């Protein structure tokens, strides 16, 4: 049964339905694989009994013919999602031991579709990081290594545990969240697919908040089709999230088509930036050829405010984070440090001890840009620039149907190799503009670099047009022939 972990979600679903294997066998294979891969530090909590219970229900339901779209499929869940009765800590000490008495809408949707849970996945603390090194549980190790080297590599972040789990075949698919690239950059680093839908497609209810105007949940999996299957189950209107889109969920999987005849692919000239390895630009050029081969026409487009996207993001996201994270005060949930000096001392000690360095940095930046004297100069200005970035995309989508860029400006780096926060923030240079504009965007593996590490291609679609993103992703997937796998060392 060990080969069950080599199958895609679509294959598992179809095999389970046809009776080739049982849901229980799938869950057992994955539970064993999860337990055997603890070296990677991908899971913070393992929930084998949850996966088995859902599998048992799926096996019983198989005869009745009333099966949800994910019946028999066990998934990994990023630790940012509240899961009833299971530790949900956002990778932070300040939430250690927090066991929600409720279930996030996204995970509830997945459960309703029949999915079980393998466990909670490690992540950068409060999703603030691009390497999973800010987690209170310690960094996740990528299953990938450079050719001829055993240096530990990061799986990217913040959905680092999610990415490592899919790449190491210790989950067939997982949830991630993306505020400024946290699904797409890790997906690129480990050679898997990951899509962030249009802002508002997936409910934020029960997802620990980082930057509420940017946060979006999305799936990560081995194939474009698997991402479509998962996203269909995760998405949907939720009255409990005031920014949830009241729209029906499209049938993304059924409508998958890699025939791009008549479609125009925008190539933004501002994304040719200095310092990006030539291999990444070469892969970008190959991606253009693949989409041409699928019938699309490349058109050069301009997104003139691109260079302001990263600075704008690093004002808006910390501003929202500093406000959202004010709730961790040691009173209602999470850890408490008594400190000295009564209630105020308790607040201070709790936050000083509970948050890690990167989270504190962003709270301070956010508090600064929202302070009375600087609000207009930073926060208001950033909101205006955000509107201009959105307008850039509106103009661009007059000329094209989807935009192709690289996902990240480098391949995966080693743990401890990037110590300068600004250098770390640069990881998201290609991902952040789509986040600020609320657009659907996906990373698909394109190839490997000289050191044998995966590189991703990034597709950005117009709002609500996840289908176009998925279809272009499928066209690349079919042509890239990406079959590289990390050699098992864990």
């Amino acid at each position: 049964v060990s080969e069950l972990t080599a199958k895609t979600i679509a294959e598992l679903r179809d095999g389970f339905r046809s009776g080739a294997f049982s849901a229980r066998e799938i869950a057992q294979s994955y539970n064993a694989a999860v337990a055997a891969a603890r070296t990677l530090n991908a899971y913070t909590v393992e929930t084998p009994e949850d996966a088995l219970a859902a599998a048992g229900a799926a096996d019983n339901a198989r005869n009745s013919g009333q099966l949800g779209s994910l019946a028999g499929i066990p998934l990994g869940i990023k630790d940012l999602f509240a899961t009833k009765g299971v530790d949900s800590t956002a990778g932070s000490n300040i939430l250690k031991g927090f066991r929600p008495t409720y279930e996030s809408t996204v995970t509830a949707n997945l459960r309703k579709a029949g999915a079980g849970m393998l466990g909670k996945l490690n992540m950068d603390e409060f999703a603030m990081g691009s390497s999973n090194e800010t987690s209170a549980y310690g960094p996740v190790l990528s299953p990938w290594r450079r050719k001829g080297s055993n240096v530990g590599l990061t799986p990217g972040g913040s959905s680092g545990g999610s990415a490592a789990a899919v790449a190491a075949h210790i989950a067939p698919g997982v949830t991630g969240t993306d505020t400024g690239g946290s699904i797409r950059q890790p997906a690129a680093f480990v050679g898997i697919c990951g899509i962030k839908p249009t802002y508002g497609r997936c409910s934020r209810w029960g997802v620990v908040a980082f930057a509420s105007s940017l946060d979006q949940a999305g799936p990560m999996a081995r194939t474009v089709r698997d991402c479509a299957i998962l996203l269909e189950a995760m998405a949907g209107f939720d009255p409990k999230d005031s920014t949830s889109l009241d729209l029906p969920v499209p049938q993304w999987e059924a409508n998958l088509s890699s025939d791009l005849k008549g479609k125009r692919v925008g190539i933004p000239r501002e994304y040719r930036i200095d310092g990006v390895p030539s291999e990444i630009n070469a892969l970008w050029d190959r991606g253009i050829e693949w989409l041409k081969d699928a019938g699309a026409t490349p058109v050069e487009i301009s997104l003139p405010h691109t260079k302001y996207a990263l600075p704008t993001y690093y004002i808006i996201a910390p501003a929202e984070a500093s406000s959202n994270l004010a709730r961790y005060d040691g009173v209602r949930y999470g850890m408490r440090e008594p400190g000295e000096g009564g209630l105020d001392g308790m607040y201070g000690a709790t936050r000083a001890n509970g948050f890690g360095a990167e989270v504190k940095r962003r709270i301070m930046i956010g508090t600064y840009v929202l302070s009375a004297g600087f609000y207009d100069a930073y926060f208001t200005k950033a909101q205006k620039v955000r509107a201009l970035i959105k307008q850039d995309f509106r103009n661009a989508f007059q000329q094209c149907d989807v935009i192709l860029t690289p996902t990240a400006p480098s391949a995966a780096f080693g743990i401890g190799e990037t110590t300068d926060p600004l250098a770390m923030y640069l990881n998201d240079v290609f991902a952040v503009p789509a986040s600020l504009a609320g657009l659907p965007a996906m990373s698909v593996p394109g190839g490997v670099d000289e050191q044998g590490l995966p590189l991703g291609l990034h597709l950005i679609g117009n709002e609500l047009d996840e289908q176009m993103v998925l279809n272009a992703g499928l066209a690349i997937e079919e042509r890239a022939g990406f079959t590289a796998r990390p050699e098992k060392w864990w």
Partner: protein
Amino acid sequence: VIDQKLRLRDDAITDGDIREDILSNAPDAEHGFFAVPKVIE
């Protein structure tokens, strides 16, 4: 960034009677309330 109007819903109670749930994760709770260090001497 995505054009939408803020919805209004009926002014009706959607939850409640979950005091134990709410207090279950509190570092300290007494008599059905969150407990904090003494504020008034």
